[in-house]
């Protein structure tokens, strides 16, 4: 079974440019999450999709970040315009979506390293 995949693995852009990160969850997983680690700090939650709907986007830092999950399959996270402080590793995770949330294990992708110069 294929795991969570993310593209690209590394992106280097200049301040003010736009970057779009993609996440393909495990097939059949309704839940999709985005997290990021900035500047070697803790991994922090960004948002949570249930199928194509945003369930919780409380962790999105500002309106320069836009996440979509059209059709409830893959998701994209766009940063426009990118700022220096956006540099970090962006992780995507997916889970099946069971009734008991505690046992709904999240499976993480390898992450996308974003460097904004």
């Amino acid at each position, binding site marked *: 079974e294929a795991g*969570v995949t993310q593209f690209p693995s590394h992106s280097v852009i200049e301040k003010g440019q736009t970057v779009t990160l993609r996440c393909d969850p495990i097939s059949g997983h309704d*839940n999709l*999450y985005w*997290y990021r680690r900035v500047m070697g700090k*803790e*991994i*922090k*939650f960004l948002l*949570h999709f249930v199928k194509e709907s945003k*369930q*919780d986007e*409380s*962790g999105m830092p500002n309106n320069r970040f836009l996440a979509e999950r059209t059709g409830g399959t893959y998701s994209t996270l766009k940063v426009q315009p990118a700022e220096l402080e956006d540099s970090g590793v962006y*992780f*995507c*995770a997916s*889970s099946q979506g069971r009734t*008991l*949330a*505690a*046992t*709904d*294990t*999240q*499976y*993480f*992708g*390898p*992450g996308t390293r974003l460097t904004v110069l």
Partner: protein
Amino acid sequence: LAKTTQPISMDSYEGQEVNITCSHNNIATNDYITWYQQFPSQGPRFIIQGYKTKVTNEVASLFIPADRKSSTLSLPRVSLSDTAVYYCLVGDTNTGFQKLVFGTGTRLLVSP
């Protein structure tokens, strides 16, 4: 969401048993305890999860005392490939748990 406290780092030798303890004094009734492992350049990987007493799977054991204010991840006979960062997470079953809250984790270094 309950705050967790873990050692910053630990060193071990191959073949030893490693125990990493996590403190979560304000754990709530609905909270579960989950441990993740992360290798460099990879995303976190689920290891084990529990609510109380002891849970064991093919890679680790999780010990949770009766008051649930702490938990211990036990890795039997570690190998070099167990060198990684280990995260303890505590979350509510109904709401906040799906929004995993990572602390700084414990960096485990296994030497020959």
